[in-house]
């Protein structure tokens, strides 16, 4: 299926569907890759290496710094698939890529594909020049 590239890169991994929007600032520990927002229903889950499927972002613009720091530390998600454009997530992943040469592609999927994406076990994201390709794995 096709998607819009927000941050280029290629990645493959197990799907993690975010039950509620997460503010990376105060919500993600870049040292461990774990969700640390005590009010988030998936608090404690480690996002490292996962293809994170989240409708939208939330919270402080310092979330960009936290995501870039997670990419530097090697604790970041493998890729992020969203339903909306999100400047905070986009910037964090882009800075991580520019500074450290590490990919954490961010793509915006079509609403029609959302049910299939959230039900998938694994996803491959190939985000180059538009459009990006998302492939559902087993």
């Amino acid at each position, binding site marked *: 299926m096709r998607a819009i590239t*927000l*941050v280029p890169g290629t990645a493959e991994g197990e799907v993690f569907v975010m039950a509620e929007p997460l503010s990376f*600032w*105060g919500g993600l520990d*870049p040292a461990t890759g774990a969700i640390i927002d005590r009010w988030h229903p998936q608090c404690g889950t480690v996002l490292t290496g996962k293809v994170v499927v989240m409708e939208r972002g939330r919270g*402080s*613009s*310092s979330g*960009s*710094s*936290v995501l*870039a*720091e997670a*990419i*530097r*530390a090697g604790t970041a998600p493998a890729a992020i698939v969203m339903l909306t*454009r*999100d*400047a*905070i997530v*986009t*910037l*964090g992943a*882009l*800075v*991580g890529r*520019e*500074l*450290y040469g590490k990919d954490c592609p961010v793509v915006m999927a079509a609403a029609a594909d959302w049910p299939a994406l959230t039900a998938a076990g694994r996803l491959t994201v190939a985000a180059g020049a538009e459009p990006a390709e998302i492939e559902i794995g087993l």
Partner: protein
Amino acid sequence: MTVELSDRDRAMLAGAEGEAARFAMNLMVRFAEAVEAPSLVDAECAHIDGCLYHGQASLDFVEHLLAFGGRVRVPTTLNVGSVDLIHPELFIGDPGLGSAGARLMRAHEEMGCIPSFTCAPYQTIHRPRFGAQIGWAESNAIVFANSVIGARTERYGDFIDLCCAVTGRVPYYGLHLTENRRATVVVEVEGLPPEWDAAGPVCVAVGHVIGRRCGDRIAAIVGLPATTTEDDLKALGAVGASAGSVALFHAVGLTPEAPTLEAALQGGRPEETIRLTADDLRRTVRGLSTVPEGTRLSAVSLGTPHFSLAEFERLMPLLDGLLSGGGRPAVDLYVNTGREVMEEVRARGWEDRLNAAGVTVVLDTCTYLTAIMRDLSGAVMTNSGKMAYYAPGNLDIEIAFGSLADCVASARAGKVVLS
């Protein structure tokens, strides 16, 4: 979608103005695409929040720009950092974190930023003019610049703030455009608690309600007290941007884009009207405290956002009253402010009186963000709705909210005193 770029934007993107400008313009264009901005516009100034340390990546980003000769192209002020560079001994946190935080602040100075280190740059000589297109970060500064001054900025934050300073450009979308500055919610203050003699608590209560109930919608507020000052509006915006994502409000008769309600609504109809009674305001203010009257305090903290000269002017007679009859604060009393305001305080000869009253003046940073307050064994009291909102989570403390006069009286008593 494609962002329409000027010839200069394209030249910068192609590296004609050096690698740092190319790097910053590339991020700027990607950001503009992500927010679907059709084009960029010149920024008159920038305000940077990225000098607060969030990890190695914060520092790597600035060092990368510096290594490629990066310099800011427009007047650029700096928000608070992690430490007080003037009084480094006040920092009692992890030393490694302290030195990385200090380096991050100095690296921004090397980029050509003004070492203002204040979250209230709008109350310094660097205040932007009405109608100016600006690229500002820090939620309270954004809402003040938009609402109280009528300058125009979107909600910028880490990384993109410095890209704006280095390129001198901002995405031309959202609150940069007149039609997106229209109020869609009317907030009517129907009654004021007669026992509140200052507009401060009223404005904090209204700001909190707007944050929770309006989200990022723009409110037009009717019925604030006639005595409302610029500092009261600063407090209103700061708590609104903490409890919600308020980036612009209009206060009818008080802020420049709202001479009348019709002007604030740009002739349109509101989609919602929120009415607030005196009881609503009392309830909201009570809800800001996590502890009741009489609770033992270990500190009182003022100046979130940073104290202005006018706020010091209101504080001085209260401190004199506290000192008369041999009184002294029973607990630590902190005031956060910026270097420039502190110079003015010194010029007026107030520093000795602050020292005599045992006040610790914190510059460059803020007590709600970093390890400054020595004794946190009891609750902390503040007159700031923003501090009340964040401190319980950031510092894991109990908080009491009261007016400025209540805060000084409580500092003397060592426990929460409410008038």
